[in-house]
């Protein structure tokens, strides 16, 4: 086990604080009607940021669900830029540059898990180093895709890390109605793969777990299912009203175990963190997201883009539709 260094933990905390700060900005942007529905990251920051820092962006892939982008700074500024393009409804939002080993958000839950297994498998077939981390929720773990993919990963010993963000909720459905399993990591045995549960509010523990799983994968020891236990501190999305179903006392308890506060405390003790640093990080995060938002809003788009990139070459019918679209633009 490689504990993260203090510097690494500091970098993780910076990303966590920035993510939460930016999440608040996103909420307001949505309320102002400047962006579409978004899913707040609150409560997921430690797991996502620490995972990213345990990986090597030059060779390891991340396949997100939809809640992660703000804490993936380690994978480059393009992640946020494209996330904002996505949020303003621009098709370039899901087109990250070739150099960035991050897949677009996945809306069809759990479908990204088979992709991750295929990608990891494809890398080994071509003797490429690297692992694939795929994020998915406790709710998504009920989908058949999770099962089929975990099972195939086991058979292939693919270098993939199945990272289940168990935040106790799938919209309004609490974990105990999602599954009777005592732990989601327990499912690993049914696929002959490694399974671990980690406190997802403990950035160092997550870093360790991912690092360990990554080393196993690179050593040909196959996949790991990591269950990161966290709590969804915010609404499911900007369209959701959690007060309808989240017991206030549970939320209260979860807030007392806030991953940011926990890591801050640790780094304050080490003399690496204080209010001043925090506010500098926040300021910087805000100007960064505001810049990205402005750029996204200014990003041009022709109506004809509707027809692009569906097939490599328009079918005859599409060619007519393209013409019709251009003339209809004049209607």
């Amino acid at each position, binding site marked *: 086990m490689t504990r993260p260094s203090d510097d690494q933990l500091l970098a993780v905390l910076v990303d966590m604080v920035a993510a939460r700060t930016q999440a608040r900005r996103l909420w307001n942007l949505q309320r102002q009607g400047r962006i579409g529905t978004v899913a707040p990251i609150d409560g997921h920051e430690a797991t996502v940021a620490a995972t990213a820092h345990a990986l090597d962006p030059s060779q390891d892939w991340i396949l997100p669900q939809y809640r992660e982008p703000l804490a993936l700074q380690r994978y480059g500024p393009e992640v946020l830029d494209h996330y904002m393009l996505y949020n303003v*409804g621009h098709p370039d939002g899901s087109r990250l540059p070739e150099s960035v080993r991050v897949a677009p958000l996945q809306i069809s839950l759990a479908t990204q898990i088979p992709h991750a297994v295929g990608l990891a498998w494809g890398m080994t077939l071509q003797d490429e180093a690297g692992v694939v981390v795929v994020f998915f929720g406790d709710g998504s773990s009920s989908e058949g895709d999770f099962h089929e993919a975990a099972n195939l990963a086991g058979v292939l010993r693919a270098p993939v890390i199945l990272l289940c963000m168990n935040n106790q909720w799938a919209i309004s459905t609490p974990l105990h*109605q999602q599954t009777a399993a005592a732990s989601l990591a327990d499912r690993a045995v049914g696929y002959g793969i490694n399974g671990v549960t980690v406190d997802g509010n403990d950035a160092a523990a997550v870093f360790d777990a991912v690092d360990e799983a990554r080393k196993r994968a690179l050593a040909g020891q196959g996949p790991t299912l990591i269950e990161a236990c966290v709590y969804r501190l915010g609404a499911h999305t900007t369209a959701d009203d959690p007060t*309808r179903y989240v017991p206030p006392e549970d939320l209260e308890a979860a807030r007392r175990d806030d991953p940011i506060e926990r890591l801050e405390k640790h780094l304050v003790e080490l003399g690496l963190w204080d209010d001043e640093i925090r506010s500098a990080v926040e300021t910087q995060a805000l100007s960064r997201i505001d810049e990205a938002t402005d750029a996204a809003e200014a990003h041009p788009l022709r109506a004809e883009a509707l027809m692009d990139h569906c097939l490599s070459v328009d079918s005859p019918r599409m060619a007519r539709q393209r013409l019709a679209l251009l003339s209809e633009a004049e209607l």
Partner: protein
Amino acid sequence: MSEIGSSVTGPSELTMLQAINEALHHEMARDERIVVLGEDVGRNGGVFRATEGLVEKFGEERVVDTPLAEGVIAGAAVGLAMAGLIPVAELQFLGFSYQAMHQIAGQVARLRYRTRSRFEPAITIRSPFGGGVRTPELHSDSLEGQLANIAGLKLVTPATAADAKGLLSSSIRDPDPVVFLEPLRGYRGIRGEVPSGEHLVPLGEARLAREGDDVVVIAWSYQVELACRVADALIDENLSVAVLDLRSLVPLDLAAIASVVDRCGRAVVVEEAVQTGGFAGEVVTTIVEECFWSLESPVVRVSGYDVPYPVGQLEDTYVPSEARIAAAVRRVLEVA
């Protein structure tokens, strides 16, 4: 074909969503065998509140928040039907019916046929569909063309608040499996007077939403609303545009289609789906089969494009607009 819809509005006006909710309340109170299941249908009342108040009224045994797995929602509905119950399943968005398609197409639709009616698949699958409200990917897809090709299913979709109630009640009572498609844009965007208490609209009867003699626009779901607006607007140009609301795609009201096309001689079919393979093609073909000799010009379809339903900034380009429908109407009328 049934009567032209009344357009009375008044204090007892409901949104389509409220009308759906009323139908669910009414039916569950009427028949104890009805069980509502799906993601977030209980405590949360559904992500759009279509099932609001049901769990409080009918209890957690009859209104069940399932795990997040569309396949088993549809599959368990088959088992519930085998047990003699009447499942009303919600798929949170029609785009995720793909996750359940092996159960819907291979099982729900075939239970009666396979067992020669030993088991009665009195199953209703409700799902919002269609775009125009800036949802994420796969939340807006119109898949009725695909579903219509699955024999053994009925396929019903309302265009008014009153029909939403009346057709949903009929669907739940129908002994065959019904996929009930609720236009997302209509949930809050369509409102109208809705009969309180018992209200049934028979499945398989189209509705003449606008009388007219020059041309008929055939549509279903939210596109009926657009077609009516176009028809109303074109009155100023002295054009008499009929609008036929199909209401159910399966069974399809062949007689209503034939009668209105025979009268008008010209037709436009509107759908929001991908054009190739969409249900509009089935309607055009039906017209060719039923009343080719009445046609004075080729039928024109107004559809989405042959690309996946796009992201927000391209949505308005994708979905048929009033302008595109009006242009199509003019086009079929211009032809000699």
